[in-house]
């Protein structure tokens, strides 16, 4: 967690949205900047606040980072690809 007044190092995260989420947001991608140490859960909160229609995203969605399922405590690093996944319905 950032602790003082020096410029916080930011990480850039490429966000991707699929299926119903892409539809409600009107976009399939978003470039997000968040402080270093941000978790997936906090990034979701930021997306819900910053994106038009973001409130339609659930607070606790399924998520993947760099093509792997992760839980919301996963910490993001610069260059990550964060995907928010509607309930899976393959098969």
């Amino acid at each position, binding site marked *: 967690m950032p602790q003082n007044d020096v410029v916080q190092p930011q990480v850039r995260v490429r966000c*991707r949205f*699929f*299926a*119903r989420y892409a*539809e409600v947001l009107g976009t399939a991608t978003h470039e997000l900047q968040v402080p270093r140490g941000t978790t997936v859960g906090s990034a979701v909160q930021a997306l819900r606040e910053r994106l038009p229609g973001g409130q339609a995203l659930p607070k606790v969605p399924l998520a*993947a980072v760099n*093509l*792997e*399922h992760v839980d919301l405590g996963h910490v993001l690093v610069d260059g990550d690809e964060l*995907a928010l*996944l*509607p*309930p*899976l*319905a*393959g*098969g």
Partner: protein
Amino acid sequence: MPFVTHAPIDVPALLAEVARRDRGGTVVFLGSVRRSEDDGPVEAIEYTAYEEMAEAEFGKIVAEAEVRWPDAGFAVRHRLGEVLTGEPSIAVAAAAAHRAAAFDAARWVVEEAKRRLPIWKRERFDDGSRQWRDGSGVAGASDTA
């Protein structure tokens, strides 16, 4: 072959991929788009995916299955795009020395695929209307198979 594909599922090709002379039991599962009274007049389902992840995740599932059943062979496909009622959208073939392992392995891969693949479906009805279909959807938690 990619695991996630827009091409129709070719069952003989899957069988050929898993065939080996020391594998006496082969099980193929096909999950098809179904139409039943409960679900309304579904004409087709359009599958979309997080394609790079679906491909990677299906590969991981197969790799894990190969650890659990070391001498077994696996071939898997998930179709994307529009799949008409009655056509298969997912296929899993497992071949093993004996039938018990082939059944168990095929079923394990199917369950993992259903649980882990980042794939979504939107139903198209006879009247042309469309609707996302997932565990949270109005249409309920019903599934192709």
